[in-house]
């Protein structure tokens, strides 16, 4: 009996055609995996500094591309001609930030942010991207919490980030 694969169109055509699709998908998967690993190694882990680590921790030097995390200080947000200026702090160290544009998300005072950018010679971080970091705590907006009200109303200092 002849068991060699048949080239009859109705038998062979659909199965060979279908087998190309998973191979193509696998190729794309390998390529996408490579891109993800590369992005991860170049940008996801490194250069992630808290304000108090500028100039202290390796990789957090002025003049290079950084991501800096800090809390937006109360009363420091100024908006002029499409530029947003504010001060971020972490462990009592402060850093002024200038960002061309309006940060999106839930950007406001007393909220932790991550700013991508470069610290110029004048000591100001020129932000190219502002990301608002929210905590893992979820609290009802209307919940009446005394400790919270004290922390948030009129106090000059923001409560420290969780």
């Amino acid at each position, binding site marked *: 009996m002849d068991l060699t694969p048949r080239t009859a169109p109705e038998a062979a055509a659909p199965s060979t055609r279908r087998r190309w699709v998973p191979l193509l998908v696998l190729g794309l998967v390998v390529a996408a995996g490579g891109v993800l690993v590369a992005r991860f190694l170049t940008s996801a882990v490194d250069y992630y500094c808290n304000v108090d680590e500028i100039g202290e921790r390796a990789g957090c030097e002025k003049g290079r591309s950084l991501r800096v995390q800090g809390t937006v200080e109360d009363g420091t947000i100024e908006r002029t001609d499409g530029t947003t200026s504010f001060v971020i702090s972490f462990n009592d160290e402060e850093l002024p930030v200038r960002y061309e544009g309006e940060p999106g998300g*839930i950007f406001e005072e007393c909220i932790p942010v991550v700013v991508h950018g470069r610290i110029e010679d004048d000591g100001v971080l020129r932000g190219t991207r502002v990301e608002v970091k929210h905590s893992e705590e979820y609290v009802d907006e209307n919940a009446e919490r005394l400790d919270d009200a004290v922390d948030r109303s009129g106090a000059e200092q923001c409560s420290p980030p969780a």
Partner: protein
Amino acid sequence: MSIPPDDTDITTAGTSSAATRLLGTLAVVGVAWLVAFGLLFSPADRDQRESVRIMYVHVPSAWLAYLAFIVTAGASALYLFRAAHSLVWDRLAGASAEVGVVFMGITLLTGMLWGRLSWGVFWTWDARLTTTAFLFVTYVGYLAVRRLGGTHQQRARRSAAVALLGVLEIPLVHFSVRLWRNLHQESTVARPDGDVKMDGLMLFSLVVGLVAFTLLYVWLVIHRQRALVLEDAAEDHGLEQALSDRRAEAALPGGR
């Protein structure tokens, strides 16, 4: 698997049974509850305000995607290490992985929408987001490996090996928020200190979401697993048809 001769019973009932119809009904009720609690009854968050509502679909779909890939790995191990090498386990693994990919895709999409609202950006290359995308891509690859052809047993062996490797990424994704500095917040519920940092009605809405997604997952996996039984049977039937055609040809004088 057998060839259905013309006189065999073939109903067109598809993959439903009384149990799946009940499960499906419960899943629809669960989804209705989730929409009601997620969009209407639950409160806005102090910092995130209304955007917190996306969490009730984002987090359960992520958890169920993890669970789906763990089930895939468990079923793959049962296939590989049991002497019977039963394709039942292989099809459960395949069905669960496919549903997991759907849920993980939903996690990524809803995460982007939530990220735009709360962080201000759709995407950022931080550890949680990147490892999640990698997990998604891995299981798309797993599904492609299942379709590379060969016999059912070859497919099962090959894909089981991929499944047992792929599941190792899950702890990496889950702990990525602790291992690396992240924009993504740390875990709220599955915390080492066991202290859930969420208000009551929000937590309840999240549990409703978890129940709804679990029902959807079970319902989808049962159907998909049965659909895979049908696919395998139809393929076997096609192969037996071709073999018997050739036997008939070979019996003829001058046949190839």
